[in-house]
C-alpha cells in the first residue's frame, strides 16, 4: 500500500470516529498558542468557507477557521520566509487560516486577524503567527460595519 493512501483514524467529541488520509494531517510544531502539546490537526471542510481545524490528539480540541482569502487584499502581511519550524521558502504555497470565535449570538462572531495560522502546503507544517506590529484585530467582526 502506498503511503499516500494510508489512512488514520482519530476521535472527535463532536463527530465520533473520523478517518482521514495520513497525508491530510497538518503538523503545527508549536501547536496553537495556548495548546502547545497538540501538534497534529486535520482540516474538515464541512461548510466552506468555514472549516474545523480539528486536533487528532485531543477529541475536544477543534477550532472553527476561515480562509484568509475571504478578507481580500487589505488583509496582507509578510510571511515568515526562512522560518525553520515550517521550512517556508520564498514562493512556497501557503494556506492561511484564521480562527473564528463563535459566540452564542452568531451575529457577534469574530475572527482573529491578528494571529493567522500559516500552513506551508509543501510539507504541511504550520504555525500560528502573531502580527504584533500591525493593527489587525484579534476580534474582527465577521460581518457588519465592524466599528467598536
Amino acid at each position, binding site marked *: 500500500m502506498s503511503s499516500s493512501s494510508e489512512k488514520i483514524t482519530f476521535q472527535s467529541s463532536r463527530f465520533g470516529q473520523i478517518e482521514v488520509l495520513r497525508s491530510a494531517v497538518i503538523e503545527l510544531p508549536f501547536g496553537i498558542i495556548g495548546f502547545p502539546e497538540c501538534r497534529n490537526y486535520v482540516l474538515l471542510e464541512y461548510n466552506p468557507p468555514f472549516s474545523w481545524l480539528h486536533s487528532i490528539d485531543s477529541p475536544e480540541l477543534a477550532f472553527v477557521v476561515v480562509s484568509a482569502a475571504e478578507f481580500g487584499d487589505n488583509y496582507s502581511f509578510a510571511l515568515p520566509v526562512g522560518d525553520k519550524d515550517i521550512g517556508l521558502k520564498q514562493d512556497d504555497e501557503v494556506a492561511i487560516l484564521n480562527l*473564528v470565535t463563535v459566540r452564542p449570538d452568531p451575529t457577534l462572531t469574530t475572527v482573529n486577524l491578528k494571529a493567522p495560522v500559516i500552513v506551508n502546503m509543501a510539507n504541511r507544517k504550520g504555525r500560528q503567527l502573531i502580527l504584533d506590529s500591525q493593527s489587525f484585530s484579534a476580534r474582527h467582526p465577521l460581518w457588519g460595519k465592524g466599528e467598536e
Partner: protein
Amino acid sequence: MLVLTRKPGQAVYIGDDIRITLMEIRGNQVRLGVEAPSSVRIYREEIYLQILEENKQALQHTSEIPGDLSQVAEVWKSRKVSAISTNTPDNNPSSEDEE
C-alpha cells in the same frame, strides 16, 4: 529568572544569535532593541497573552454550535464580510515601535 543590570547602549546575548540592547531610557519607559534571526518570534507579552486568551475563547463556545457550522454559514450567506481598513482600532497599547 536571571536579572541583569544594563546601562543604555549595553546588550545581552541569549544563545548565540539573539541580542537584546538597552537603547535608551525615556522617563518610565525603556526602549529595547532585539536582534534575532527572522525565524525567531518576538512578541510584547501583553499581545501574546491577548492571543492566548482569544484562542481559548475561540475554543470555548465551539461545543455549543452544530458541527456542520450551519449557524455561522447561514449568517455568512446573508451578509458580507466586514471591511478591513489598515486603521482598524485595536485594544493594544499604542505602539511607536520601529521594525
